[in-house]
C-alpha cells in the first residue's frame, strides 16, 4: 500500500468512527448541544481545518453560533460577526456552499469579516448549509490557517457532516412539520445561552478566563457522562459541582 492509500484508509476509518459515534449520541439521552459540539470538534479532525463552528438561524432574524471546536474568544467573534456579513450569511441565504480559499485575495467580498479573520490568523474559509428540504436551518463554518484549494473529497464529506447536523437538530429524518423544527431550534439556541451564562458564572467564581471555564464544563460533562447543558444548570444553581469543577481547575 502506498502512502496516499494508507492515509485514505486511516481517514476512512476515522470518518466511519465519527459517524458511529454521532449515531450513538443520537439515541441515548440525546442532547442537541452535546451533539453539535462533538460534531464541530470532529470536523476539525476529519476535514483538515483549524476551526469549525455551527450557526443556526433564529426566525427572529439572526444567525447565532451554537457550537465551536474551540472557545477562543476571537474565533467566537468571527463566527458571530457573520450575523452581519460573511460566508455563513451568504451560504444561509443561497442555500449553497460558499468557499473562499484565500481571503486576502478577495478582501472586498466581506471587508469586515476578512479583516477580522486575518487578525485571528485565518486565511481560508468555507460554509456548508444545514438544509432540510427547502428550508435552511443554518450553516457549518470551517476555517483554515493556510490558503488552500478546497478538495472535492473534503467538500462532500463536509456536506455529509452538515447533513448529520441537520438530522441532529430535527432529531429524525421524517420530520414534516415546520412547527417541530421551531421547537427544536429554539431549544438548541436557548441551551447554548444557558452554557454561556454558566461559563460566566464559573469564570467569576474561579477567577479564570471564560474559555477555561467552558473547557472545565465540557470536560466534566464528558468524564461524568452528563449533558453539557445539565452541568451548566448545576453551575448556575450553585450546586456542589462548582467546587468540584474549580478544584480540578487548580490541580
Amino acid at each position: 500500500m502506498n502512502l496516499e492509500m494508507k492515509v485514505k484508509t486511516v481517514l476512512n476509518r476515522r470518518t466511519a468512527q465519527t459517524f458511529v459515534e454521532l449515531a450513538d449520541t443520537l439515541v441515548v439521552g440525546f442532547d442537541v448541544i452535546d451533539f453539535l459540539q462533538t460534531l464541530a470538534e470532529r470536523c476539525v479532525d476529519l476535514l483538515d481545518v483549524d476551526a469549525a463552528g455551527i450557526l443556526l438561524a433564529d426566525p427572529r432574524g439572526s444567525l447565532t453560533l451554537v457550537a465551536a471546536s474551540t472557545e477562543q474568544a476571537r474565533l467566537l467573534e468571527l463566527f458571530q460577526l457573520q450575523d452581519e456579513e460573511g460566508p455563513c450569511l451568504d451560504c444561509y441565504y443561497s442555500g449553497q456552499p460558499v468557499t473562499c480559499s484565500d481571503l486576502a485575495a478577495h478582501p472586498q467580498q466581506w471587508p469586515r469579516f476578512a479583516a477580522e479573520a486575518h487578525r485571528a490568523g485565518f486565511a481560508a474559509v468555507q460554509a456548508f448549509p444545514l438544509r432540510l428540504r427547502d428550508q435552511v436551518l443554518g450553516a457549518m463554518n470551517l476555517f483554515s490557517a493556510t490558503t488552500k484549494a478546497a478538495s472535492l473529497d473534503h467538500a462532500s464529506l463536509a456536506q455529509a457532516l452538515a447533513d448529520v447536523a441537520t438530522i441532529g437538530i430535527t432529531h429524525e429524518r421524517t420530520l414534516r412539520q415546520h412547527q417541530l423544527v421551531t421547537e427544536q431550534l429554539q431549544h438548541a439556541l436557548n441551551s447554548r445561552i444557558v452554557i454561556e451564562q454558566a461559563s460566566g458564572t464559573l469564570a467569576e467564581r474561579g477567577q479564570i478566563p471564560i474559555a477555561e471555564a467552558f473547557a472545565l464544563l465540557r470536560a466534566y460533562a464528558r468524564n461524568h457522562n452528563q449533558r453539557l447543558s445539565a452541568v451548566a444548570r448545576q453551575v448556575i444553581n450553585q450546586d456542589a459541582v462548582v467546587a468540584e469543577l474549580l478544584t480540578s481547575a487548580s490541580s
Partner: protein
Amino acid sequence: MDRQRSAAVWAAINDHARAGGAPVSIEAVCLICARTLRAQGVSVALSDRLMGYEPVCASGGAYRLMDLQVTLGEGPGRDALTGDRPVLVGDLAEDGTRRRWPMFAPAAVQAGVRAIFAFPLLLGAISVGVLEISRTEEGWLTPQQAADALVFADAALLVQVRQLASPDAAAGEPKELRWGTAERWAQVHQATGMVAIQSGTDLSAAFVRLRAHAFADERSLLEVARDVVARRLRFGPDRDEAD
C-alpha cells in the same frame, strides 16, 4: 429569518405604549399579539416556585385555558415551561394531542379552543413564564407568525424581568422595549453570569443591571458585556459600579 419583520413587531408594541403614555405592560403585549396573529386568546402565566404556573394576564377567553391548566396540572403551557421549548399544537382534537393531555385537550375543545401555541419566556437559564396563543380554528402558525410570536415572547420576558428586578436596578432602563441583536452574542450571556456572582443576584437581575448600565452610559449592551468579560468592568453588590 427576517430582521425587518421583527423590528416592525417591536415598533407596534412601543407605539401602543407611547400612545397610552405608559411603559410597555404585559397586557399591551398580549393585546397586540392577539391582533397581529389573529388569535382569539393570548395569555401569560408566570413560572412560580410553588404552583409552577401562575396566570397573570389574558385577553379574550384565554383565562379559561390557564384555569384548566392550573386545575388539571397539564397542558401545553405547562409543558413549554418544564421543557424549555415552544409547544405548538395545531389541533387539540387530534388523537395524538388527546393522548398527550388526556384531560386538558378535550376540556379545551369543549371551551371552544382548537389550536394553542405556547412559547416560554426564556433567556438561557432565565425562565420567567409562558406566552400562550389560542385560536378557535384548527391550523398551524405560518413560519412568519411563529417568528412574530417569538418576538412577543421576548417582549413579555423583558417586561417581566424588569418587574422582577429591584426598582433600583430597573430605574435606568430605557422606556422603549427593544431586543437588540446583541442578545445573540455569547459575551452578553457570559457577562450576565459574571455579574450575577459579582453582585450576588440571580441571572435575571444581573441581565437587567447590564442593560441599565449600557443605557445609562449610552453604550451598546455588547460593548458593556465585553468589558465585563475582559474584566475591565465590575459590578459591586450595590448600585455603584467601580470601573
